[in-house]
């Protein structure tokens, strides 16, 4: 029996790729010799031992296991159906296409295709590991009846101990409160609601805060442009769109954050929420999709449709020290559920069950 991990794209720094690389590392450390195969591989990752082009994937024997990560529409979703071996799905969810229709036909089509493919694969997998309960429910709605378990994304927290960009830390250590959101620029992330919240804040409390929208707009430049025009319309001088930044810069933005605010309408898990917890940033987040699951009762919840309320909650979170401490304490407790040791043990346990032919 051999284990093969397969995904469509292995890119640098995204949650799905990081999860796949962390799983490969974990399994190799635990004596399972396995490789990861992808259709598209970021050139920065090709030198990693065990990362291979999909064309190099050998024919699987009946007792081999394929761990398949599904997060988008791709022809590979159809191809794996006819590949051999026993298949274990790791489902990261697919963003509903409606979010992209205005900005990118390509993204909309990919997501639409992906959701159709997820449905057509409902009888392909012997078991599924969902990264959140929200994802499990999503699969049930799409007709999945195979055994499913919740297994959060495996996050190697050691990486966050790397040196942050000192220049950013020094530049923005000026007494102004820093509010941060980290994620790619995408319509489902609702960065416009961060801007309307900032506008409400400015009108209610003045200019004492600054918002950093940290993320890469690649492929959604039309949305990014619209966001920047909206910031101008709202006369917000205190918003920084960083664009794509280095990992050291991302660490720095988490470090300088006085609060982390997330207005996403669709998240399959929400790794940045965990990162914010790790850096001790109190979280204000809209209660959508998997966000409440991931927060697990910690952080503060809001809604997208009431910028005034969000601004009020943010102000309290920034200036009430006792409340901040309580929120951070709750987040620290929640963070323990996502520790590398805990999630890796859970993953190994589920994999062993799968190997033995027991329900995950």
């Amino acid at each position, binding site marked *: 029996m051999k284990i093969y991990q397969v995904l469509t794209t292995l890119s640098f720094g995204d949650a799905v790729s990081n999860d796949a690389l962390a799983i490969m590392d974990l399994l190799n450390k635990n004596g399972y010799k396995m490789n990861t195969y992808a259709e598209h591989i970021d050139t920065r990752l090709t030198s990693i031992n065990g990362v291979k082009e999909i064309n190099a994937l050998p024919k699987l024997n009946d007792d081999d296991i394929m761990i398949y990560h599904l997060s988008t529409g791709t022809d590979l979703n159809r191809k794996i159906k006819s590949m051999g071996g026993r298949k274990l799905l790791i489902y990261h969810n697919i963003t509903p296409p409606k979010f992209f229709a205005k900005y990118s036909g*390509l993204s909309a089509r990919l997501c639409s295709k992906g959701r159709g493919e997820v449905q057509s694969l409902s009888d392909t997998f012997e078991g599924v590991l969902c990264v959140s309960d929200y994802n499990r429910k999503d699969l049930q709605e799409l007709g999945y009846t195979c055994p499913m378990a919740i297994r959060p994304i495996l996050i190697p927290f050691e990486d966050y101990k790397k040196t942050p960009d000192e220049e950013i830390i020094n530049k923005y250590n000026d007494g102004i409160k820093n509010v941060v959101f980290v994620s790619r620029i995408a319509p489902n992330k609702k960065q416009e609601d961060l801007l309307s919240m900032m506008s409400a804040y400015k009108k209610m409390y003045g200019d004492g805060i600054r918002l950093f929208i940290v993320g890469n707009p690649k492929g959604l430049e039309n949305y990014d442009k619209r966001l920047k025009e909206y910031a101008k319309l709202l006369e917000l001088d205190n918003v920084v769109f960083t664009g794509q930044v280095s990992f050291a810069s991302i660490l720095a933005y988490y470090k300088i954050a006085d609060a982390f605010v997330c207005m996403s309408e669709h998240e399959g898990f929400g790794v940045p929420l965990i990162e914010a917890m790790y850096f001790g940033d109190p979280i204000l987040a809209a209660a959508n999709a998997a966000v409440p699951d991931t927060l697990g009762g910690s952080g503060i919840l809001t809604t997208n449709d009431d910028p005034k309320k969000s601004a009020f909650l943010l102000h309290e979170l920034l200036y009430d020290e006792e409340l901040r401490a309580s929120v951070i304490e709750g987040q620290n407790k929640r963070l323990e559920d996502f520790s590398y040791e805990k999630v890796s043990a859970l993953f190994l346990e589920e994999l062993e069950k799968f190997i033995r032919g027991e329900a995950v």
Partner: protein
Amino acid sequence: MDARKVLNDRYEASKSDLPDIKIEPFDSVPVSFQNEGTTGSLKHCVNHIRKNRGISYNCLDKKGRIVRKFLAFWIDPMVGQQNNIDDKFTVALLELFKLYKEREALYNRINALEAKICKLESEA
């Protein structure tokens, strides 16, 4: 401390004292269909097809099946936005799609006529 409850109670108690403010909606900013995102992605897709399926753009399936599949897949969602597409590359692809559809209709007519002639010949 149940921070969520504390904050929520505080908000409910203060709600009526908050200033009445208006915020311009995001919808007041028009959506711009520039070439940056979508067209760049289309170009990427063509290159991807060339590279990964071993076909040259000038050496397609005679019936244009690959091009049709490609166009139906990648461009259909943008058909509603055609008026906003001014990129020559995309316009050319759409034109090609249209021509392939016309050629397919022509082939169908030729095939039907050939079948009819064969039948008439056999009956003669």
